């Protein structure tokens, strides 16, 4: 009976795929990661609050193994392609938000910079398929 109920709910609400907990966490097809602000091409004076948007998945702490949830990583001026089979690097160009932050104060030197978000799972690995935002360019005055 319970199963039937669940099935119904799933049908009606088109549940996000509830993934099994394992390596290489699967992400729902409709997961959507993006910048709430700034947007591509924004000209910014000085430091700014960068806000991360995520739909159809949840934000949680690094280390939390809930399905369909991850934490944000902000890639600044990163040109190397993302390795889907390795932990997202941690350095000055790969900022981690393992506390579940959904925004960050960013200060960059004047000039053009690229920003991109990557969602990481409990162990900082990209999801499968990777949940990444469009790479945007901002211009710091």
């Amino acid at each position: 009976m319970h199963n039937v109920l669940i099935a119904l709910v799933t049908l009606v609400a088109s549940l996000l795929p509830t993934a099994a907990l394992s390596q290489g966490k699967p992400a729902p097809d409709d997961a959507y990661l993006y910048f709430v602000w700034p947007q591509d091409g924004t000209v910014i004076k000085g430091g700014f609050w960068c806000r991360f948007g995520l739909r159809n998945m949840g934000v949680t702490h690094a280390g939390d193994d809930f399905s369909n949830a991850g934490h944000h990583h902000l890639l600044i001026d990163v040109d190397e392609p993302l390795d889907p089979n390795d932990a997202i690097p941690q350095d000055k160009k790969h900022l981690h938000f393992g506390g579940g932050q959904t925004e960050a104060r960013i200060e960059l030197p004047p000039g053009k910079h690229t920003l991109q978000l990557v969602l990481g799972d409990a162990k900082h690995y990209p999801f499968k398929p990777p949940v990444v935002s469009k790479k945007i360019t901002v211009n710091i005055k």
Partner: protein
Amino acid sequence: MSDDNDKRTRGQVYPFRPGRNGSGPPDELPRRLAAILAADIAGYSRLMGHDEEGTHARIRRQRRELIEPTIAEHHGRLVKYTGDGFLAMFDSPVEAVRCAIVIQQTMIGRNTSLPLEQRILYRIGVNLGDVIVDTDDIYGEGVNIAARLEGIARPGDLYISGGVYEQIKNKLVCGYQSLGDRQVKNITDPVTVYRVLPDPAALVAARRSNKFIGAIISVGLLILGGVGGYFFIVKYYAPQASPPLATAAKVKAPEPAVTPSAPQLPSKPTEATAQIEIPKVIPTPPTTTEKAKTPEPAVTPSAPQLPPKPTEAPVTVTPQQAPATVTPGAPPSKPTEAPAQTETPKVSPAPPTPVPTLLTPEMIPIPGNSFSMGSSDDVSERPIHRVAIKPFAISKFPVTVREWSQCVAAKACSYVATGKDEAPVTNISWDDAQEFVRWLSQVSQKTFRLPSEAEWEYAARGGTQTKYWWGDQPQPDMANCKGCGGAYDPSQPLKIGSFKANPFGLYDMGGSVDQWVQDCWHKDYQGAPSDGSAWLDKTCVSRVIRSGSWRNDQSYVRPASRQGYDAAVRYPTHGFRVAAPP
């Protein structure tokens, strides 16, 4: 800054215990303007009815891991817990709303893995009003309105009053959906109510969904009964409310195919169902004080308490630590073995000896002196400043897997490390490192701790003031880093001591593993202490890591290079070394 409406001052919140009290009669209680946040759990009785103990445990855990730290991080004060909710106050409406958003978004994440009947959803109301501050409570219409807003909010939603909206509309990039004026119980004047959508793109959707949701919910209720209906609300909040655009609507199911094109907020200002305010996107102007803290912390520093997965480390405990031996519970019994063992962690491949000895890290005494800390190579390393260092001792190597595993065997360290015995331990959070030094101090009867950032840099420089300890130029085969020459394995750090020691006889001070120090992360050295002590704040989410790891390039090997990272979070390149009195 230029915006004097900005309420996000960091001024002291009026102390709840007005101090020196005992005197002031009740009518002299201080009044003040504050942003009041009221929250409660939707369907609390239902949750309790379903699983009393489990629900209670989960709520308590949420309070500890989420509610309290999040309020603190947003410079608020928890006034009190009510039966199933809580009341908090903030100096700044922006911070109050931010705090509420963080709580709601984190709950989405936490709920996804739970069965429906266990999901906990908060309803939150925020109001700006004049309140009376008593010893452990606050009173006034301002509080009542916050509570009423909470009462009419949908589960998982955040409602704010018009007053709050006016203060934050240009500062927080959210969607604000006007719900019009509402008459609330026992309050004479109607209150303007806004629903906050953390994601402005959800606005258009939310607006349309208004019509839908009612119908859908009732259908849902019909079909599924209470649980189904409840679930819907959950569902609707979770993807941040985005029902089908009527056009694209094949309405395959009431659940929307979120059109990723939706995020362009101001795109369709046509409908008039409810006025929607879309704020100009203005990055919240930082107050000067605000700028100091770089990444806005959002959630609990105490995060990895329970979840830190025993699962994630496939329990590959290093085998040969005949465990059970070093019991932390019996400190007095151990002192003998600690001093006796004149350490050398790298020696002794320790065949499972019947008499297991405590392996304490080998320590190198460092003389006191003063030095120039920092460099001009990176903004975070400026300004260069003079720091005096008192004599201390620091471990010759980063803490190894073998040393770490003793702590695990003694059940004093929760993280079960993997890797070769002689490799530096990795995937250690700052919190984990604290467990280790606490345990080590206890069993060895000596005071072990993390070094301060200044001590670490002084030790790493080995008496030099050059860019690297060996000079100003990068040199191959000097450190375990990426592209640095010499032996290298991209997947793990080499065993300790694989490269030359610096002039102080310390190994792997640069490269190998990132190393936690005691200090809170500050984005540069403005205001740093000059006495070599750790630079601490009342609370800090991020702490400093030094050394760079085997996965970083040579610029991270510089003794002055520094980064910050969330103290509660584990990352595969992070380890540490310990310090002690000389």
